């Protein structure tokens, strides 16, 4: 995404680097553990895998104090409005990590009760497959979110990049048209 973006003015660039470093270094997840992935997320937070080394062990109960919402588990139809409400309560900048296949796409539960992917409800930044994903996989995804956070553009520059990204996405081939590929 960043290759097509125009380079920012020098001061903004320095500011972005600093803000990105600060944000990435201490992202506070909002507790949105729902099901089995929540247990793996708790396992990632504890001593063996320890996301405290990335500054992320502080799970905030209140979404107002949180940066990242790790949707860990299956979102049922009853829970979807609450998911949206919690997302809306978070302050910018915020990121959403869909942990597990149930959050990414509905997973193995293709039925009346489960929302087929939380991207129907909230915009997702990183999709993490797995059922449940191993804690190492979650750490990998969190490192990717840290990369996103550290490269997040600021100020007026932000709108230009967003517009450029949207134009590129609209011009690209949608996945459903990528026929004939085995991989």
């Amino acid at each position, binding site marked *: 995404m960043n290759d097509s973006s125009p380079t920012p003015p020098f001061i903004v660039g320095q500011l972005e680097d600093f803000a990105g470093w600060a944000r990435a270094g201490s992202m506070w997840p909002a507790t949105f553990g729902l099901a089995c992935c929540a247990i793996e997320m708790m396992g990632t937070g504890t001593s063996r895998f320890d996301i405290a080394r990335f500054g992320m062990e502080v799970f905030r109960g209140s979404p107002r104090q949180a940066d990242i919402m790790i949707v860990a588990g299956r979102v049922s139809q009853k829970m979807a409005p609450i998911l949206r409400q919690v997302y809306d309560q978070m302050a910018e900048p915020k990121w959403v990590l869909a942990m597990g296949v149930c959050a990414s796409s509905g997973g193995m539960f293709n039925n009346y009760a489960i929302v087929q992917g939380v991207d129907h409800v909230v915009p997702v930044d990183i999709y993490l497959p797995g059922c*449940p994903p191993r804690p190492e996989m979650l750490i990998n995804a969190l490192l990717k979110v840290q990369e996103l956070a550290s490269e997040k553009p600021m100020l007026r520059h932000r709108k230009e990049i967003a517009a450029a990204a949207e134009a590129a996405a609209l011009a690209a081939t949608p996945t459903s048209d990528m026929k004939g590929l085995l991989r």
Partner: protein
Amino acid sequence: MTTDNNAPHATSGLGDDDGTAPEFTVYGGDWSDVAEEAARLGGQRLVFNMGPQHPSTHGVLRIMLEVEGENVTELRAGIGYLHTGIEKNMEFRTWTQGVTFCTRMDYVASMFNEAVYCMGVEKLLGITDDIPDRANVLRVLMMELTRIGSHLVAIGTGGNEMGATTVMTTAFVGREETFKVIEHITGLRTNNAYIRPGGVASDMPDDSVEMIRGMIPKVKERLDELAYLQLENPIFKGRLQGVAVLDLASCMALGVTGPILRSAGVPYDLRKSEPYAGYETYDFQVPTSTEADAYSRVVLRLEECYESLKIVAQCVDRLEASEGEPVMVADKKIAWPAQLSVGDDGQGNSFEHIRHIMGESMEALIHHFKLVTEGFPVPAGQAYAAVENPKGMLGCHVVSDGGTKPWRAHFRDPGFNNLQALSMLTEGGQVADVVVAIATIDMVLGGVDR
């Protein structure tokens, strides 16, 4: 819970309320009306929501509290935020594939869901006595390791919710030790789909015995540490002793089983009263207490972990002695055919198995094909199986229409049943005790909502 005192079949109440306090009964849907009415009544009475997204509700549980000052006057639990439609989904999958679905109900203790479902299916098939001994020992081993894991989560998250994070990290480190073993044997840390109708999916690798024997003292160390951290701690005692009491009569009325019933004095454990999977041949105790409060339940859970370690040690001895024996039922028309192994390019089908089905035996190829694509048919009828979950009695009602898919699979999760008691545990107490009460019931919302 307001009981209808005019019901002729009800037992007489233990005490009568004089009917002066305004009563609200909330069962979802009418929540806004109740909140309005309570606001009108004013005063110190607050009605608030301990919403589905909450760090201390053990999952997505919604609690509607009516509070006067610090005292809880009424509490209602709202569930269904994790309803996954697992039972309906199982009707569209074969009997073996059902294992992968039911295992995700109570995701903290997944092997028990699998075990009870497989026991129900085996009852329908009539092969309960044909399950090989080694398979039963492996089932017991997995169930006891999962029991330790589940109790550690209960104790750990209970401590975390009261503000002591060290309890959680200690408990989860202990849990990771059991996970290393479980992952070595089944391939996955959780949601394993290891116990299948007819036995278990695969035999354990060669070095498992030493690994398990090495794990036992490590887990014991963690349990000792948890006991040392918590049990004599005055804050811990202050917050848990005398809190969330559920006496014997209430337990029996509400159908509560598991550590809550055992803490009220009844040594009821399905492993002893209706042994399954060979439990009658193991030497273990069933810890019981009479205090019926949250503190005694934590003590009970820790003691059950020690007992489980005893059983694990006995399992390991038997596994060492029975090496080479089959782990699936002998009937090839039911036994899961595929064998996996770890090769140079990762995990995949075992070459020996492929050589067998492709080169040596036509019947094996047919069985493999039919079992994997179609599944085995189960004679029509219904059966009920029950196991002793870490949380209580987990039951499974399976109905078959003679086909390769369940007609109906219903699970009686102990968390669903025990959660009804939450109102009794908390009403009249303080707000801070609500968190302790939830932790002491130790329900898993995946099992509650299914």
